[in-house]
């Protein structure tokens, strides 16, 4: 039963600011996912939470207890290190049992837990090996097992599945989610994998350059990104960012993007006086081939196909529209080749508008969700 609160936390290494002014609340039993590009401060934040790093500024609370300066052993957290940090002189069994032994748990209980956990992570047959005799993925599972053997106040998992094959990763994803739900332990999970983030997280915090850009549920993060960085970071393939102009009108604004002109109600914008030059964001998933488009898609663009990339179930087609590359999703059965002229359709309620300089979203986030909800109904 643990809530976590970061209050204005900053961490500098020398004069490099790894984490800046972090404010974040994680609810009891919540599965919080940290995502963000490499070097943006995710591990540093986790280490501050574990007590391995002292914030340069700010406070960290667990259940309203100030633990900013508390020693790691006092916080009752279990952590999977990004580097694994296995004890090389101990067998897998010893590695798993080390923590419980240190805490003086009864021998029989430890042996039983080791059996359970090694089965959970699929290491039963390797219990007698040393870390040097394991593959990278097996080592990572030992590291994961060492955390899962505990019932701590908080789980801190730093990219715990990064080295596993696709099947094992999917399997472990479910196992972790299930264990977390069963134990109800507040969890912070770092990952570079979009699918992991979207499927496992109750909420996702997007980091960039030591700051949190947005914390939200996976659906809202995808549907209503607060700025351009979040929009392009979440979702694969990346959201298209296209140059556009805004012209204000009575009760609406007119958007002109690569020759396509459409209007949006001004109420759906955050500011009454938006800039003229903006950037328009639209996901490849929301751009449809004419013959495959839902009827709500009324805005049209056309261009020349310059490259194709098929994933099997669908084909992503990059289309050159007035010199700008636009990625769009086509059904895989479409017979199409490079150089073809194609027409693309999209729904104006699916577009995101960003300030060209600050990158902030210009659309009122609540209105986007409502509008798209409406448009999906009709």
């Amino acid at each position, binding site marked *: 039963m643990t809530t976590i609160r970061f209050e204005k936390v900053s961490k500098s290494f020398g004069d490099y600011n790894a984490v800046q002014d972090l404010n974040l609340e994680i609810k009891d039993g919540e599965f919080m996912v940290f995502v963000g590009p490499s070097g943006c401060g995710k591990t540093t934040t986790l280490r501050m939470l*574990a007590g391995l790093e002292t914030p340069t500024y700010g406070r960290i609370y667990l259940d309203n207890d100030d633990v900013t300066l508390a020693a790691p052993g006092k916080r009752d957290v279990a952590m999977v290190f990004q580097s*694994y940090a296995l004890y090389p002189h101990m067998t897998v069994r010893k590695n798993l049992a080390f923590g419980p032994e240190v805490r003086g748990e009864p021998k029989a209980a430890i042996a039983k837990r080791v059996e359970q956990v090694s089965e959970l992570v699929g290491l039963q047959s390797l219990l007698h090996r040393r870390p040097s005799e394991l593959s*990278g993925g097996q080592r990572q599972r030992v590291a994961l097992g060492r955390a899962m053997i505990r019932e701590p106040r908080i789980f801190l998992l730093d990219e715990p599945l990064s080295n596993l094959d696709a099947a094992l990763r999917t399997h472990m994803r479910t196992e972790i989610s299930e264990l977390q739900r069963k134990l109800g332990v507040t969890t912070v999970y770092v990952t570079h994998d979009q699918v992991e983030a979207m499927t496992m997280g109750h909420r996702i915090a997007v980091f960039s350059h030591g700051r949190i850009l947005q914390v939200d549920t996976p659906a809202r993060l995808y549907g209503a990104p607060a700025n351009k960085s979040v929009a392009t970071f979440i979702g694969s393939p990346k959201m298209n960012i296209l140059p556009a102009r805004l012209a204000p009108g009575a009760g609406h604004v007119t958007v002109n993007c690569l020759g396509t002109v459409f209007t949006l109600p001004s109420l759906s914008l955050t500011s009454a006086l938006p800039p003229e030059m903006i950037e328009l964001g639209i996901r490849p998933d929301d751009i449809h081939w004419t013959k495959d488009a839902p009827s709500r898609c009324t805005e049209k663009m056309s261009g020349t196909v310059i490259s194709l990339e098929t994933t099997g179930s669908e084909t992503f087609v990059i289309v050159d529209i007035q010199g700008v590359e636009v990625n769009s999703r086509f059904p895989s059965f479409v017979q199409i080749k490079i150089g073809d002229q194609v027409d693309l359709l999209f729904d104006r309620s699916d577009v995101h508008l960003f300030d060209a300089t600050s990158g902030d979203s210009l659309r009122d986030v609540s209105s986007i969700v409502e509008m798209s909800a409406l448009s999906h109904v009709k």
Partner: protein
Amino acid sequence: MLNPGAKASKESDSGAPVPNPVSGLSFEKVFSNLTIAVLGVFFAIPMLWLVLASVDRRATYALKLPLLTFANFLAALQPENLGALGNSIIMSVIATVVGTVVAFLAAYSFSRHYIPWKGPVLLAILFLSGVPITVLIVPMYEMFSYAGWLSLVPTAILLAVTAMPFQIYLIKNFIDAIPLDLEEAAFIEKAGTLRVLRSVVVPMTMPGLASAAIFGFVNAWGSFLLPVVLISDVDQQTAPERLYGFMSSTSVNYGGIAAYSIIYSLPVVLLYVLMSRHFKAGFVLGGAVR
């Protein structure tokens, strides 16, 4: 040493088949093997003398065939000689244990903790390891006699101190190589500092600790001047001093010296054999971090 690898690659560049690097005579090879042979003889002859003289009834300083006897060994195994060996063992073990334990703790602090002016302090320690304790023998004697310490145990501790600078350096290098993550992982499991040292740091520093211990032991074992000056009680004399018991003003018992020397060198050989398994450092860090 020869460098067959470099030679082979030179020849394979020119397209010729790589020759067996062992076959064939070259000036290089003859010269280097000769040098090694000469050096080997320099070491082997005294050893040979030691063995031959120890079983020679009429041993002299010359190298010759012995008139077989065990009398020398019987003389070397006289109670007072054995007692001196015992004293040497006690002294060396105390010096080894004290020196290695203290050096380990110091090395851990130097490796992991914040210490003001760490660099200069470490340099000073390195410098100290080069200062022969002999230059301090007079003030040391004064100090020991003033404090009433002219006996075996304080001398052993002083010997431990003389080995410490080098031991600290040696062990610190090993601790530096241990990823910090491992200790942090243990701290997160609620292990205390002593537990982390015992279960994580010590096992991984074992090769360093073994080397440091052997260094400490040999340093104390072979020490002559300090025990002679600082141990006043005849019953606490150490083995190197007893060697002098085989020399009188009129004659030298070469056979006795040789036999006693052989007995005297056995503990060190034994120690190397016992410690050798701790030297296989290779596996120790494998697989800890990616």
